[in-house]
C-alpha cells in the first residue's frame, strides 16, 4: 500500500515539476525573442514612434537596456514572480492592473463558451454514437461543417442575422454588471466561438464512445443481461470521459487565444482585443504578459487533466506508475 502511495506521489511530483520547467522555459523564450529581431532592441521597441528623448529614456529604463542580458532577464523574471509585468506605453498603466481590468469580460466569455461546447459537443457525440444509423450520418455531416467554420466568419454571420436582421441580441459591448445583461450580451460571441470547437468535441466524444461500445467488457456486460442507462453510465461513459477531458485541457487555452477574433467583431473589451491593439501599437510588455498567461493556462489545465484522468481510468494510473 505504501509503495503505491509512493508511486502516485512520484507521479504527481513529476507532473508538477514538468509544468514548472515548461513555464520557466517559456519565460526564457518570451523574454529573449526580442533579441532575435535583427537590429538594436531599442530601435525595434521605438519602431513607428517619434523617438523623443523622454520616450527613449523611458524605454531604456523599462526594458533595462543598459544592463547585461542575464541580469536584465533575472530582474524581469523576479518581477513577474512578484506580479510585476511591466508598464504599458500605450495605456500608460501597469500591465498587471491592465490585465486585471480586462479579465472579467474574457473569463465570462471563455467560461460561457466552454459550457456551450461541453454540453452541445458531448450531446451531439453521444447521440451520434448511441443512435447510429441515419442520426449518426446527419450529425457527422453537421459536425464536420461546424468544425470547418472559422470563429470570425461565424461571428459575422451571427452578427448580421441575430443582431442586425432579427434584432434579438445586442451587437456591441460585453454588458454587465448584472449576470442577465452579461449573458444576453455574450450569447452571440460565445456561440460564434463555440461552433467549431463543439464540432470537434462531438467527433472526439463519438469516437471515444464507439471504441468503448465495441470493446470486450461492454460485450460481456451485455451478455450478462445489462443494458440501457446502467450499462452506459457504468461501463461505457466512464472510460470514454478520458479523451473528452484531454481535449478540454487544450480547449481552454485555445479559447483564450481565439477570443480575440470574436472580441473584435462584437466590440468586447477583453484580453483578446487588448492583445490586438497592443500588437498594433507595439506595446511589447502587454504581448509578453498575455503570451505567458495563455501558456500558463495551457500548462495548468493540462496538469489538472493529467492528474485527474488516472483517477477516472485506473489503467492509466498503473501504466504511468510502472
Amino acid at each position, binding site marked *: 500500500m505504501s509503495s503505491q502511495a509512493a508511486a502516485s506521489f512520484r507521479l504527481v511530483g513529476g507532473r508538477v515539476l514538468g509544468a514548472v520547467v*515548461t513555464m520557466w*522555459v*517559456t519565460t526564457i523564450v*518570451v523574454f529573449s*525573442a*526580442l533579441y*532575435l*529581431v535583427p537590429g538594436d532592441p531599442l530601435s*525595434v521597441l521605438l*519602431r513607428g514612434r517619434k523617438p523623443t528623448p523622454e520616450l527613449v529614456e523611458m524605454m531604456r529604463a523599462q526594458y533595462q537596456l543598459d544592463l547585461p542580458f542575464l541580469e536584465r532577464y533575472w530582474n524581469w523574471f523576479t518581477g513577474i514572480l512578484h506580479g510585476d509585468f511591466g508598464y504599458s506605453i500605450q495605456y500608460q498603466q501597469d500591465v498587471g492592473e491592465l490585465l486585471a481590468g480586462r479579465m472579467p469580460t474574457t473569463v465570462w466569455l471563455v467560461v460561457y463558451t466552454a459550457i456551450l461546447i461541453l454540453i452541445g459537443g458531448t450531446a451531439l457525440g453521444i447521440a451520434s454514437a448511441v443512435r447510429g444509423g441515419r442520426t449518426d450520418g446527419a450529425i457527422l455531416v453537421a459536425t*464536420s*461543417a461546424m468544425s*470547418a*467554420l*472559422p*470563429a*470570425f*466568419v461565424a461571428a*459575422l*454571420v451571427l*452578427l*448580421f442575422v441575430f443582431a*442586425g436582421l432579427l434584432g434579438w441580441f445586442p451587437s456591441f459591448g460585453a454588458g454587465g454588471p448584472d449576470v442577465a445583461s452579461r449573458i444576453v450580451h455574450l450569447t452571440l460571441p460565445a456561440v460564434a466561438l463555440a461552433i467549431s470547437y463543439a464540432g470537434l468535441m462531438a467527433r472526439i466524444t463519438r469516437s471515444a464512445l464507439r471504441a468503448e461500445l465495441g470493446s470486450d467488457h461492454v460485450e460481456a456486460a451485455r451478455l450478462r443481461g445489462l443494458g440501457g442507462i446502467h450499462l452506459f453510465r457504468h461501463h461505457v461513459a466512464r472510460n470514454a470521459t478520458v479523451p473528452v477531458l484531454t481535449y478540454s485541457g487544450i480547449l481552454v*487555452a*485555445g479559447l483564450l*487565444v*481565439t477570443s*480575440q*477574433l470574436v472580441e*473584435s*467583431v462584437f466590440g468586447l473589451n477583453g484580453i483578446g482585443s487588448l*492583445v*490586438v491593439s*497592443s*500588437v*498594433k501599437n*507595439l506595446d*511589447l510588455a502587454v*504581448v509578453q504578459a498575455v*503570451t505567458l498567461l*495563455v*501558456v500558463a493556462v*495551457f*500548462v495548468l489545465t493540462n496538469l489538472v487533466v493529467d492528474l485527474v484522468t488516472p483517477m477516472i481510468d485506473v489503467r492509466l494510473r498503473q501504466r504511468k506508475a510502472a
Partner: protein
Amino acid sequence: MAGLSMPSSLAAASTGLRRRPRRNVSFDLSIGVLIAFAVAAIAAPLLAPHDPYSVDLGLTNAPPGTPGHPLGTDGSGRDLLSRLLFGARTSVIGPTIAITVSVVIGVTMGAAAAWCGGWIDAVLTRITDFLFAFPGLLAAVFAVALFGPGIVAPAVGIAIAYSPVIARLTRSVVLGEQQKLYVVADRTMGFSGARTLVTTVLPNIAPIIVSQCIVSFGYALVDLAALSFLGLGVQAPEADWGLMLNESLPSLLLGAWWVMAFPAACLVLVVVAINTVGEGLLDRRGKKRKR
C-alpha cells in the same frame, strides 16, 4: 516475409486499394474545388474583370448582378469578384511558407529523434512537447509583435507552432520504418545511417508526411486569414479574404451581406476541400500502414 504469409484475398484487397481508391464523391468534389482555387490564384490577372484596387465611390456596396460587377462591389466600390480572385493568391502564398518551414523543422527534429535515439531523442521529444503549448494563432500574433505585420512573420510563427505535429508524426513513422528489412539490409551492407535515412527512408515516408501537410495547410490558411481579419496580417489595400472580411463590417451594418458572404464562402469552401482531401489521404495511408 510477412507478405508471403498474407492471405491472397487480403493481398489483392490491399493492392486494389493502392491502385484504384474507392470512388468518393466528396473527395472528388474537393479536388475540383482545389483545382479551381489553384487556377484562380495563378490566373487572377487574366480572369479578373476589373483592377482589384480601383475604387469607385459612386458605386459602393452594389449588389450581385450589377452590370459589369457579377458579384457586386464592396464598401469602397471595388469589384468583389476581382478581389476574390486576387485574394486566392495570398491564401496560397502564406500557408505555403508556413508549411514549408514547419516541414523543414518538423522532419529534421522527428527524423533525428527517431534515428539517433538515446538522449537526443529525449531532448527533442521534450522540445516537441514544449512547442505544443503555443497555439498557432498566439505564435503568429507574437511574431507580428516582434517583426511587424505582413505575410512572412505570421507564417513563420505559425510554422513553429505547427512543427511539433509533423515532428511527432515523422518520429513515429521513422521508428516503424526502422524495423523493416530494407533498413536492416542497408545497415548490414555497411551503408552509413545518415545515407540510408535520406536516400531510402525519407522517400518512403514522404506520402504520409505530405498528407499531414495538406491538413495543416488548411489550418494555416484559417489562422492566417484570422490574422489578416484582425489587421495584423496582410495589410490594406491588398486583396485578401481575411482582410476583405475585416473590411466588410461597415457594409454588413448597411445590410450589404454579400460583401461578407462571398469571401466567407470562399474561405470555408477551400478549407473544407483541403480538409476532406487531407483527411482522406491520411486515412488511406493509415489503412495501408496497418496492413
